[in-house]
């Protein structure tokens, strides 16, 4: 079992690296969606799962990144890759600004306020504030990716772009786990008062989690905009945020759990297309069943990632 665990992530990466060559173009599209939504769900996990903040508005940051890319490309003619820093930084800064006044709110209040941010954002997009969001139809006709002057038109290149972003997300999350900041998030989730009493400025780290989660979601937004070469408000509706929220909790706030959640929520329905109208009914039942049977999620996050030299004999190891 331990061995399986150790090889599962490299194995997954290897499979995903060769996968598009085994798929036809419509399934490639599904695979890209899987990659993009995995990044969004993992970014949601930083705020919701790791830090324990009831945040149900990840669609806001995802959409903000997508729109940043779309507007800069469409209105101002920036190349797609040049929009990436903006698509990361704008959601991250907005996330930090929005989080500032609300992170002290208790669980459910935070949840409703973040839903609110998401809904206001979609309303802003629909009402075409500032005349740059394209209203209810959104923005379409974005350029394709280009690198060093070479246009990468193919779907394959979009796939590898999305894949690279997922790998980057894995890397950031691994770095987070092995750092002071990442542990601080876990501490404050488990017991905020104890965390403060041991010297952690919980407010700063909560805001940090929002900034980081928002930035990653924004980057996923860029990929999303490239994939469809269009953006429109309903893709970032708060119903989407509800799905990301549920994926993290049902998955158990671990990388395999979250990926499994994304797979079930977005890939499985493509396999059972004839049951499309039953999709959310069945998801609803599955969510209830999953929570009753595994209240901590399908693959619960595990702790105890400590340096080897600290583990000394005895049968007490985790």
């Amino acid at each position, binding site marked *: 079992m331990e061995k399986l665990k150790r090889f599962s992530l490299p194995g997954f990466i290897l499979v995903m690296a060769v996968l598009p060559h085994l798929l036809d173009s419509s399934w490639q599209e599904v695979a890209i969606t899987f990659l993009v939504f995995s990044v969004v769900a993992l970014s949601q996990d930083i705020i919701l799962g790791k830090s324990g903040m009831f945040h149900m508005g990840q669609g806001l940051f995802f959409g903000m990144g997508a729109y940043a890319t779309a507007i800069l490309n469409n209105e101002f003619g920036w190349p797609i890759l040049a929009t990436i820093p903006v698509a990361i930084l704008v959601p991250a800064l907005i996330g930090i600004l929005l989080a500032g006044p609300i992170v002290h709110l208790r669980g459910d209040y935070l949840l409703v306020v973040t839903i609110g941010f998401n809904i206001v954002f979609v309303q802003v997009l629909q009402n075409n504030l500032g005349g740059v969001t394209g209203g209810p139809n959104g923005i379409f006709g974005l350029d394709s990716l280009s690198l060093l002057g070479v246009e990468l038109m193919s779907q394959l290149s979009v796939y590898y772009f999305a894949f690279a972003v997922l790998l980057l997300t894995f890397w950031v999350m691994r770095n987070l786990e092995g750092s002071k900041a990442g542990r601080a998030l876990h501490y404050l989730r488990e017991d905020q008062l104890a965390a403060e*009493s*041991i010297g952690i400025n919980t407010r700063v780290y909560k805001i940090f989690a929002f900034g980081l989660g928002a930035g990653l979601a924004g980057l996923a937004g860029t990929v999303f905009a490239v994939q469809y070469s269009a953006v429109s408000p309903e893709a970032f509706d708060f119903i989407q945020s509800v799905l990301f929220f549920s994926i993290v909790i049902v998955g158990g706030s671990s990388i395999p759990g979250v990926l499994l959640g994304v797979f079930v929520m977005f890939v499985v329905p493509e396999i059972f297309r004839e049951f499309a109208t039953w999709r959310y009914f069945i998801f609803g039942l599955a969510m209830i069943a999953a929570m009753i049977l595994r209240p901590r999620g399908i693959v619960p996050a595990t702790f105890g990632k400590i340096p080897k030299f600290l583990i000394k004999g005895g049968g007490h190891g985790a």
Partner: protein
Amino acid sequence: MARNELILTDVTKRFGGLTAVDALSLKVESGQIYGIIGPNGAGKTTVFNCITGIYKSEEGSVNWRGEEIRGMTPYQIVDRGIVRTFQTIRLFSQMSVAENIMSGRHIKSRQSWWHGIIHTPGSRRDELENWKKVEEQLDFFRLGEYAASPTGSLPYGIQRRVEMARAMAVDPTLLILDEPAAGLNDKETLVLLETIFKIRDKGVTVLLIEHDMDMVMEVTDYLTVINFGKQIAEGTPEQIQKDSAVIEAYLGSEDDDDE
């Protein structure tokens, strides 16, 4: 001269109409093991909460090494070398013993927020140094065999030790223990006594609340007795044992439950 001393002057904390701490003054000197005792509901834990920034007292002054710390947040107070444990044990229960102790290194770690995204050689070195410090605490508190165990599943006595180890990982100047012997058996209490002396020998001042009278008399250098939030006596254990007001307060309320 900044001596390691804590001076409370006329500290008053009210909850609605109830005065939990009433014009309390006390002075903890450097290197002391100082005890606060008193019957149930006397306001002992509230005093600790006022010192550690969980509550802000309405009146009075909390002075630490010449600096007013009343009104500071808990993490600012930790930064000044004051760390506490809780009567009810508040560990990060899903996380391992080593990770719990590592939380005490948070304030000493030199990593910046952005090291949570990108590591540098400096941040890796810092990470390793702090895990080494965790190892020291694991050894000191004889917790090595439990390093990777989730704390929530450990026996009560070990959880108490983990909480103390976590506090000691901060390298505190003043360690505040809220009923460290509560729930321990005689043997564990004995080990605790030894540990407290060893901590003092490291140059750490210890301030503790305790119900176990035998233990208090044995371990402390100096005592304050409070009842209904007010100081009714202070002195060395020998003086306190003879104090009539103290004897009366204790005979008045014999029960030995938690506050």
